[in-house]
């Protein structure tokens, strides 16, 4: 069954015709060309496909695109204000060496955003829990945890 749906992604409306069984991940990557969101496992176990829907982090690989109509979707491409001004989370990931191969990065950043929106001053165990659904093989998570700490500080200062 094909549906003509309008998705609000990073503030912009996109109208796509999509089959009801297509996942949000497929529509973002294949129809909208927003390939910053990755697909690492397709089972909701690795977190590489994490996006925010109405402010909550979800696995885009286990979300039906049709179910997202009328919701606010934020992907990694919507994090930075412009090409020149990055989001504090992105700045911190770069600054702290939290990025190696980069394949988990988008999902990690979205999980970090989910956390910091709800808990602006997280403890280390809270950060670990917040990213425990995001797997990374390169970093051992240390510098990612450090980056999220640092981003939290910057975001508080900015407010």
């Amino acid at each position: 069954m094909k549906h003509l749906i309008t998705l609000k992604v990073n503030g912009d409306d996109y109208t796509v015709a999509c089959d009801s069984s297509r996942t949000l991940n497929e529509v973002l990557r294949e129809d909208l060309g927003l390939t910053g969101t990755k697909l690492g496992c397709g089972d909701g176990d690795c977190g590489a496909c994490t996006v925010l829907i109405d402010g909550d982090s979800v696995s885009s690989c286990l979300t039906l695109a049709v179910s997202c109509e009328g919701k606010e979707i934020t992907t990694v491409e919507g994090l930075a204000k412009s090409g020149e001004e990055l989001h504090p989370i992105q700045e911190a990931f770069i600054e702290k060496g939290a990025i190696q191969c980069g394949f988990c990065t988008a999902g990690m950043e979205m999980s970090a955003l989910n956390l910091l929106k709800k808990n602006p001053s997280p403890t280390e165990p809270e950060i670990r829990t917040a990213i425990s659904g995001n797997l990374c093989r390169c970093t051992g998570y240390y510098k990612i945890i450090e980056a999220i700490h640092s981003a939290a500080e910057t975001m508080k200062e900015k407010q």
Partner: protein
Amino acid sequence: MGLSRFDYYAPETIGDACELAGKLGEGTMFMAGGTDLLIKAKRRLLNVSAVIDIKKIKELNKITFDEKEGLVIGSTVTLTEIENHPLIKEKYPAIADAAAATANVQIRNMASAAGNLCNAAPSAENAPVLLAMGANVTVEGRDGKRIIPLDKFFTGPGQTVLKQGELLTAINVPVPPKGAGTSYQHISARGKVDISSVCVGAMLVMKGDICEDARIFLGAVAPTPMMAKNAQELLKGKKITEELLQTAGIEASKECKPITDMRASKEYRTLMVAVLTGRAIDESRRRAAK
């Protein structure tokens, strides 16, 4: 592998949802978070011809509590909402613990406790505590509404008493009796974010040091979550000592019927039932004393 092809509907009332499900018939699935359903559809473990998304039904997305009726958790309430709900944390801490121990953040932001029950995995994290607390589920269909005690709900791995077209609309948990303490214990052999190899939910009703009533349920050690009957009986009317909780644990381990799979062996699961039952009794007792 992509998802199998299916139709999608998103009705806004329970009545419409049930009507639609009845009309569409076999192969129609209700979907809340979809985290179990879509994986099963992807692996072709379920033949899904239509999905009825219930997230747009507003009345299902509520948590309510009153001193008479107890707690009502609507069937689209997410695990994250349960985990963080102040009233649940205060009055039903083990329910919050079990929700928080399910899968990972993203999944908890999507998945519902009701879906966890309907998926009916033997290891369903949210079942043992709800069972121990005597929860019921409200089920609605074209033919009306029925209330099913949760201990009559599961019939086998992936199997429940739900009939085609019936929608679980709410989980109802009675007000805990005076002196009650609850606990959720689980172990995953390999990592902290893991599917449980064994899980235990317990509720003890204490009067001073004496256990007046006990309900203990075990997950992942039988085709459905199961009551540890003998262990419960052993505790009733007795003072809870270190020795007694160990004996009760061993009793529970004799009752369970685990299998060996890739997550843990039968022997290890049996041992862990004893350990975790003991820990669940202990925590329940401590929480009751607070």
